[in-house]
Every structure is written in structure tokens, then in C-alpha cells.
């Protein structure tokens, strides 16, 4: 065992520190300023959404509550930012003071509606993504691991769902079943799972024939053990990436449905409907902020989730190189 002693000696000297794939990914992510900025924006957005009740009490304008002071008496247009705030922000809390203006011709408070709209967007984005990922994992992993007929059936199912026209089907279903929060979440998840599902199927297909899977079977591991202990953990990378992209997609899809009037019921604030509120009678021509505020927030939010997804993909890419 002389070699062992030699190794023991070497160990006490400085050794090259090998880093795990996870550490490398974090190191790469730390250098990706775009992804970090996106992450920072998302954190701020979550805080903004959580602060909804604070904005309500701060401005004195409850959510979904019409205010006669929010509509200009002469033009009948929603009031603009800081309208009625005679002393600037010091007058916030007075009924006439609207920090970001009113959001529609009923005089809803823009700031409060945006905050509660963020809440809606995040809930829909996250819940729809969880559902999407659960279905995608389940079907993708089963198809990839079991193979044969099971795989053929699931793969064809993915093709069929991919061929459905989303908006057409969603609008028809909305008319048939009536729109609700769960309806919007389910319809978005139904049209999203096939894409990550295909990715997971492909990953499992290539992983299941790798030698370490045979080695695990050699040790007497069962199929479920191989799937849960050996294959699933390797999907964490693509799962993270596609979850992030899926949140962006779900938020955009909800906004689109609500804009068209087939999304959420009226009592749930939504950025998409705020944008559509600016359309009737050409309101947006005289009060462009009606569209600019929710529109900008929507675009930046979708962009942030997409950029975060891209950043995660680059960080988790094993070909991404080493950072010293």
C-alpha cells in the first residue's frame, strides 16, 4: 500500500480543486449580467406584486374600485400620472391623487391595478408552469424510458397537441366552459407541455442507454429507482431552463386571452385587460399611458423570464467552458 501513502502525502499539499457541475454553472451565472439583471427584475416584480395591499392603503384606492376623481370632469378621460396630487407625492392618500394616473374610464388606480395584475400574472405563470412541467416530465420520461408502443403513442400525442391552433381553441373553449382563473391556467398548461415533454423524452432516450444506467441495473436497481435516482436528477438543467421560458409564455398567453376578452373574469385584475381597456373609443390616443404602463411591464416581465431562461441554459451547458 505504498502508493496509498504517497497519495496521502500529496493530499496535504495544495491540490487542484475540482468543481462540481453545479458550482461551475453558478460561477458562469454570476458572470452573466443580463441573466442577473433579469433575476433582479423578477425579484422586484414579486415584491411589487406582494405590496398590492400596501398600495391600496397608501393611495386610498382599493383594487377594482371606481373613483369619480379618477375621471376628468371635462374630457371624461382617465386622469394622468400625478393628476390631482397638488403637493406631489405628499398628497398621496387624498382621493384625487393618482400616482400613475387612473387605469380606465371608471377611474381605477393604475398603480394598484398594476400591482394586483402582477400578482395575477405571476400566479398564472407559476401555476401553469408547474402543471406543464409535471405533465411534461411524466409523459416525456415515460415515453423515453419505456419506449416501444408507449413512446409512439405519447410522441404522436405531442405532435397532435402541437398542431392545435392555440388561440382558436382557447377562445372556443372559453365560450364553452366559461372563463375562470383555473380555466386559463389549464388551457395554457394544455398547450405548453408538449414542448418541454419532447425535450425530456429526448434527454431520457439518450441517458437510458448510457453505461451508468446499465451499471445501476447491474447493482440490482429497479426501474423506478433508476428513473427517480439516476435519470430525473439529470433533467434538472433542462427543467430549470424550460420552466423559466414557460413562465414567460404563460404570462404572455394570459395577457393575450384577457386582451381578447376571453381570459380572466372581470374581478381579477390583468395586464392584458388593462391594455384592452385603452382601446375602446381610441382612449389610448389621448391617454397613451393607459397602454404604455401595463404594456411595458408585460414586455419587460416576459423578456426577463426569457433572458433568465437563456442565461440558465448557457450556465448549465457543459460546453460552456471553465471560469477560473
Amino acid at each position: 500500500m505504498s502508493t496509498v501513502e504517497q497519495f496521502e502525502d500529496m493530499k496535504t499539499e495544495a491540490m487542484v480543486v475540482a468543481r462540481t457541475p453545479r458550482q461551475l454553472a453558478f460561477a458562469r451565472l454570476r458572470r452573466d449580467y443580463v441573466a442577473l439583471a433579469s433575476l433582479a427584475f423578477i425579484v422586484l416584480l414579486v415584491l411589487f406584486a406582494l405590496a398590492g395591499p400596501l398600495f391600496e392603503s397608501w393611495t386610498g384606492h382599493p383594487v377594482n374600485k371606481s373613483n369619480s376623481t379618477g375621471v376628468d370632469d371635462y374630457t371624461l378621460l382617465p386622469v394622468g400620472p400625478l393628476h390631482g396630487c397638488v403637493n406631489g407625492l405628499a398628497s398621496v392618500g387624498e382621493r384625487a391623487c393618482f400616482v400613475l394616473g387612473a387605469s380606465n374610464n371608471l377611474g381605477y388606480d393604475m398603480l394598484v391595478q398594476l400591482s394586483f395584475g402582477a400578482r395575477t400574472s405571476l400566479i398564472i405563470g407559476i401555476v401553469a408552469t408547474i402543471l406543464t412541467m409535471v405533465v411534461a416530465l411524466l409523459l416525456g420520461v415515460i415515453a423515453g424510458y419505456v419506449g416501444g408502443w408507449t413512446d409512439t403513442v405519447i410522441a404522436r400525442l405531442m405532435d397532435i397537441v402541437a398542431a392545435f391552433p392555440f388561440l382558436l381553441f382557447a377562445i372556443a373553449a372559453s365560450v364553452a366552459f366559461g372563463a375562470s382563473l383555473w380555466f386559463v391556467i389549464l388551457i395554457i398548461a394544455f398547450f405548453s407541455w408538449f414542448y418541454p415533454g419532447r425535450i425530456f423524452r429526448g434527454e431520457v432516450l439518450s441517458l437510458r442507454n448510457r453505461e451508468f444506467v446499465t451499471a445501476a441495473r447491474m447493482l440490482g436497481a429497479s426501474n423506478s429507482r433508476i428513473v427517480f435516482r439516476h435519470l430525473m436528477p439529470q433533467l434538472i438543467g433542462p427543467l430549470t431552463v424550460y420552466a423559466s421560458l414557460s413562465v414567460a409564455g404563460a404570462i404572455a398567453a394570459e395577457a393575450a386571452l384577457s386582451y381578447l376578452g376571453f381570459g380572466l373574469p372581470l374581478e381579477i385584475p390583468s395586464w392584458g385587460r388593462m391594455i384592452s381597456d385603452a382601446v375602446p373609443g381610441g382612449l389610448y390616443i389621448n391617454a397613451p399611458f393607459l397602454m404604455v404602463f401595463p404594456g411595458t411591464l408585460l414586455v419587460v416581465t416576459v423578456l426577463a423570464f426569457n433572458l433568465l431562461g437563456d442565461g440558465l441554459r448557457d450556465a448549465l451547458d457543459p460546453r460552456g467552458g471553465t471560469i477560473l
Partner: protein
Amino acid sequence: MALLTVENLRTTFRTDDGPVGAVDGVSLSVDAGKVLGIVGESGCGKSAMSLSIMGLLPKTATVEGSIRLGERELIGLSGSELRRLRGDDMAMIFQDPMTSLNPVMRIGEQLIEAVRLHQKVSKVEARQRAVAGLAAVGIPSPEDRMRSYPLELSGGMRQRVMIAMALLNRPRLLIADEPTTALDVTTQAQILELMRDLRSEVDAAIVLITHDLGVVAELCDEVAVMYAGRIVERATVDELFAHPQHPYTWGLLASLPGRNLASERLHQIPGTPPSLLRPPAGCRFAPRCPFAMDVCRADPAPALTSTGRGSAAVACHLTQDVRDREGARLSGEEQA
């Protein structure tokens, strides 16, 4: 009493072009504490045979014949029965240690999993056994290595981990499928030394699959030479090197780099092993055999027949005299 008895094993793969008989009527046996070497070129059915024994072949393969581990018949066992045996009573070391460890699990987790799959022991106990297993295969500071990921270890170290993993539950049968092929030469020597040390300690029947007769000479008690899915020659190691009987064995022996042949080109056996989709009609080695006679091309090779020296047997049309003469010439050259 043989620990592993294989009788008339036939492994056939269904392919789009028709059935491929990767293993075609192989019989062999190994005693506890002994090492049987299986030699042959790539594509001779060595790996298909070992995977058949372990029950690890995909559904496209059918395995017929008899494989007995001790008294127990393995063919026809259900998936869960086989699973209980694998990793416990029988284990396998794979060729490429780079790919046969899960890249995203720590070494320790994988070893502990291997123990706990078969033994109802606490995590602490399983961990102690894993550390002891790593120490037994000469891995320095095993406690630290338990926390390592496979990519942090060199190929030799990973193969040691694989060997430790295979031996954790003290298997009665160990199959090593070219355990040194993927390693560089100095590491190969270390792993061979380790296996020689472990041989006496584990008291398992070992089947060592290799294409390297040098490895066979180092480690094995008996050798079976495989060609195109069949065993063409079987003997003890000493007997095989002293009286090689089959022209294919001569070819393998002649292609070993000798000490005094540095300036010469290495010998090679012309051609490649035949397609098992449509094997040749006569002796399967006849198309590449410099001694092939008309009968070799017309009639299949005879069954393994004793050479009269101990347990040695060969499947060849050549007469005993010719085989002895040519074999003696070859091993004489080797020693010269």
C-alpha cells in the same frame, strides 16, 4: 462444485436484417475462487455472453440454454428475482469507468445505494461499508472521496470505485468485462495488480473478459477462447500457452508483442470476424485460417474434443498431430 455453470447458451438478437446469433451454444463452468478468462476479438460474443449471464440484455435479445449460479437456474427468472441477485450474488465491472458512474451523484451516494439495495442496514452502517470498500481497493483518503463526484477522479480511480462497488456485497460471481481496456498502460498495471490482490481475498468465481492474452497470463486459472459466438478452445492457462491447439489461438498468441520482436511488424490475423447474421457454412474461422482444408470450408467445426492433456479441449478439424506440431513451433518461437 462449479459456482457458475453455463450450458449450451444461445443469445440471439432480433434485428431488422434478421436474427443475429451473438452467442451460439457456449458451455463453460467456473469454480469458486477461480478465474476463467474469456478471450477473443471484438464482436466474438464475449460481452453478449456476460450480459446474458447478468440478465442485462435488452428485450430484443432472447437467451436460451441454461445458466446456473450454484444450484439456481437464472434463465426464466423474473425481473425482480434477477434484481435481487444482481449486485448481491453476482456483480459486474464494466469496460469504461468514465461512463459507468452516474456523473451527477457523489461517489458515496452511489456506493451507499449499492449496499442498501440489498442489505437492510442503517445509512451509517452502509456508509462505513462503503468507506471500507474504497479503502480495500486502494483509494487514498476514502472518507474524502465519498464526497467526490466521478469527474473529480482519474480513470484508474474511477475503475477502483467501480470494482469497490461490485465487491461491496461480497458477490459469489464477478464478471469483469475488459476492466482495463479503457485505461492507460500504467493504470492498467495497477488495476491488474489490484485484481490479483483481491482474487485471493474475495473467494468469488471470476469471469474475466479480455482480448489481451497478457492479462490472461497474469490473472487467470483457465481460459476459453471465443470466436464468432462459440468457444473454440478451452484449457488451463499453462496448457494454453504451452500447447495452443486452435489456429485462432495461434493467431492471438502470435499477435502479442514479444520482447525480441521490437524491430518486426506485429503479426495480425488477416480479415475480420464473420458477420453473425450469416455465419460461414463450414468452420467459422476457416475463411481466415492459414491451415484451412476443404473439410473446414464444407463442414462445421467439430464439438469441443479433449486433447488428452487434462481438461484441455479444442474444436478444430486439424488432426491432433498437426495441432501439436504447429502449436509447439509457435510456443517454441515465443520462448526463443
